[in-house]
């Protein structure tokens, strides 16, 4: 534990850019690619993942001195799966339309590397307060990228953002953007732009 404690503010902000789950560490790409065909879907998936991440971080951080090392992954998965089921049932019960459009990708949050990765790398070794801050930062960073991806893909693929039509009749939607190849292309451009900004900063 010789690591120097960074400030509370930095604990949150690192998830937004420097250690952003999608742009920097490329974790949790399955939902990132699969459901961001509209901004609303990106938002819903971001929030559901953040909820699971925060709740699991809270639990695992509190139980970190209690869970034996050999069964930690099993314990984490049970805890994560519990909150994923809670989130899935919540969406099905209160937002049936969103639940239907996200399809199987809400249950699949359970295998999202981002969540298990944060538990193994952070929550299992840090205080509850720190783990929560980390969860907030990572969840926010993940959600923001998903919403941005959803906005770009929805704009080019359907001519609207959050269901509001922005491009008129003249615009012929690029169908490919709401299909899987559009997800890969957009994400590729996002990561390229992020790396380009980092390079510029490093040389500046």
């Amino acid at each position, binding site marked *: *534990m010789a690591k120097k404690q960074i400030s509370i503010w930095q604990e949150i902000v690192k998830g937004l850019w420097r250690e952003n789950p999608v742009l920097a560490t490329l974790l949790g790409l399955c939902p990132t690619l699969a459901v961001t*065909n509209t901004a609303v879907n990106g938002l819903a998936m971001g929030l559901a993942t953040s909820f699971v991440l925060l709740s699991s971080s809270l639990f695992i951080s509190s*139980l*970190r*001195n*209690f*869970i*034996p*090392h*050999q*069964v*930690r992954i*099993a*314990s984490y998965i*049970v*805890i994560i*799966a*519990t909150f994923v*089921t*809670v989130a899935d*049932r*919540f969406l*099905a*019960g*209160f937002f*049936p339309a969103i639940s239907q459009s996200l399809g199987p990708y809400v249950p699949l949050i359970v295998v999202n590397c981002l969540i298990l990765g944060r538990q193994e790398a952070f929550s*299992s*070794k840090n205080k509850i307060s720190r783990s929560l801050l980390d969860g907030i930062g990572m969840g926010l960073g993940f959600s923001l990228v998903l919403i941005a991806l959803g906005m770009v893909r929805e704009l080019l693929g*359907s001519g609207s953002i959050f269901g509001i039509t922005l491009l008129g009749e003249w615009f012929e*939607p690029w*169908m490919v953007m*709401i*299909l899987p190849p559009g997800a890969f292309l957009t994400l590729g451009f996002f990561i390229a732009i992020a790396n380009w900004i980092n390079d510029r900063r490093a040389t500046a």
Partner: protein
Amino acid sequence: MTQHTSGSGKMVLVLTLITALSGAILAAWDSYTAPKITYHREQALLVAISQVLPAHDSTRTVVLNGQTFYEAFAGDSLVGVGFQALGNGFQGQIRMMLGMTPDLETITGLEILEQVETPGLGTKIAHDPSQRSDPEWFTKQFNGLLPSPELTVIKNATPTHSNEIQAITGATISSQAVVRILNQQIESARQAFRTGSEVVHG
């Protein structure tokens, strides 16, 4: 750090406790959300039934030869029969609610409940955003059709017969799939409805 090794007794205990806690949380949450989820499903079905059948004031569900029918009544008289039609589309299953007159000769309405066709092409069977004035033109075509001997799809032309519908441009396969499913299921529904022994549910 938590990297101390533990005996198997502690492992079993901890895992048991965690799974028990997980079970408790899920049980509590399920008892809260399950009624809501069921409610939404039934609502979706009821909305679909009311949309595909003529004006009615009550419905009842009957099961004939294992197939579920939704009968619509205006007063005492049976005005329409609805049933679900299910089959394979271009990419996955298409689930529809079909409304017909009590003699199962005329279609009164069609709703697509579930489909996973190609976005922007096959999905137009349910919703066609390029026809802003009438995005559901495809299913509306079925209103009043007489599927005898059977429905047929025509391309790039206005239907002239009472059993023809126009295919969606670029989504011929999805259009044909809808018609194929309907032809099959209307046939089996006729058999079940006309000859079946009745089990009434509420």
